[in-house]
């Protein structure tokens, strides 16, 4: 039993320096996850702010040129969210790789962008929900004290919304981490693909696939625990 485990380990990781394949895959998984999450947050913040401002302009029946641009931009953002949420991520990834950025040599970067664009749509919904969870009376109080709309959002609404946004945002990052396991489809070697490559060489699926699963699990479990702790911390400041 122990001997066969040892043999499996050597075959999977040591022979032909196969651990390097795993390391390369792990590196790409982390790069794609982190960069995509960052792109997602930036896009999500922009889309949710545009939506928030446009909604306010609509409520106030503003018809200036700026307000019209804002509302047009908001329509565009809604379309973006609808398309991203309405199509499979695998298809988005392939469209990005083989059509939109087909000549682009750095496939890892293409994956970052594809996942970032995908994540941005979900992040925007997370932030929108967070902003919506803050009582509208808070906005009215801010505006009645002469704060601008952006000022009210920045000083009054967002600090309260962050409590709901931050944990959901971390969960979104965890989701991105797991979703990156499909990048093998466009010939990028991530952790999953690395495991698959080694498996096809060693013909020993158990050791490779379960090792890969354990790495994902440790990462996700650790992050989930961290989010749980963050949630409790944020909830504590509620009680003072």
């Amino acid at each position, binding site marked *: 039993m122990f001997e066969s485990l040892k043999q499996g380990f050597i075959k999977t990781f040591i022979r032909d320096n196969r651990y390097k394949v795993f390391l390369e895959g792990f590196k790409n998984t982390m790069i794609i996850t982190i960069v995509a999450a960052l792109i997602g947050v930036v896009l999500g913040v922009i889309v949710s702010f545009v939506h928030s401002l446009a909604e306010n302009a609509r409520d106030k029946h503003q018809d200036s040129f700026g307000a019209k641009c804002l509302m047009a931009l908001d329509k565009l953002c809604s379309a973006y969210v609808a398309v991203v949420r309405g199509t499979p991520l695998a298809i988005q990834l392939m469209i990005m790789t083989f059509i939109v950025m087909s000549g682009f040599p750095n496939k890892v970067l293409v994956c970052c962008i594809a996942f970032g664009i995908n994540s941005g749509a979900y992040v925007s919904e997370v932030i929108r929900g967070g902003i919506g969870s803050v009582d509208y009376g808070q906005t009215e109080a*801010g505006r009645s004290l*002469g704060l601008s709309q952006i000022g009210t959002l920045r000083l009054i609404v967002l*600090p309260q919304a962050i409590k709901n946004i931050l944990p959901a945002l971390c969960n979104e990052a965890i989701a991105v981490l797991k979703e990156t396991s499909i990048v093998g489809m466009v010939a990028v070697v991530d952790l999953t693909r690395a495991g698959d490559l080694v498996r096809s060489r060693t013909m020993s699926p158990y050791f490779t696939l379960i090792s890969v699963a354990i790495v994902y699990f440790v990462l996700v479990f650790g992050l989930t625990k961290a989010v749980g702790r963050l949630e409790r911390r944020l909830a504590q400041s509620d009680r003072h």
Partner: protein
Amino acid sequence: MIDIKDLKKDFGNLQVLKGIDLHIDKGERVVIIGPSGSGKSTLLRCMNMLEVPTGGKIIFEGTDLTDKKTDLDSVRCKMGMVFQQFNLFPHKTILENMTLAPLYHKMMSEADAKAKAMDLLTRIGLADKADVYPSTLSGGQKQRVAIVRALAMDPDVMLFDEPTSALDPEMVGEVLELIRELAKTGMTMAIVTHEMGFAKEVGTRVIFMDEGVIAEENEPKEFFENPQNPRLQDFLSKVL
């Protein structure tokens, strides 16, 4: 000071204000009463443009607030507003609640803003609450802080939107007492309330709103002792 001309406000198909003409002079304390749904809160909220009117004009200190070019943020600095639900900022201490807007508008240095806030808190007997969060205050205390938060901006007029309606009965007195004291300083006020005794005592003029129009207005003694409009007679017989 405030000149309202043919003010109209629709919510979808519902016409809430059907052409209001109202003039409020400096030093006047106008109390607005009426059955629920009569448009009295909407009228008050139009005065600082929290509700954007569908038609008509609101002139405040010579500025037309319905003009799209008007900088509403600076106008609102001169109009304090007190809400039914207090709307203190829960993520800020009492002192921070009071200094937020003066510092935002760079009206004074941080030290001066704090000194002024402490002075106001001392006057309402809540100086010891300066560094706590709103959640630890009683309803009456919250509303009194909300009133002095508005006063910290040195407004020319104070708008009260049912300031005691969300309070437990035993806390109504302390809030009314503070408004009464404010009245003695000659502050111009517009008050929407259901407290008839208070209306009679503090108001220099009382307005009865019914179905989106001003159905009757008079000085308090005549208003309550000799009501002309049958709807007002009916309303008073129910609430007095």
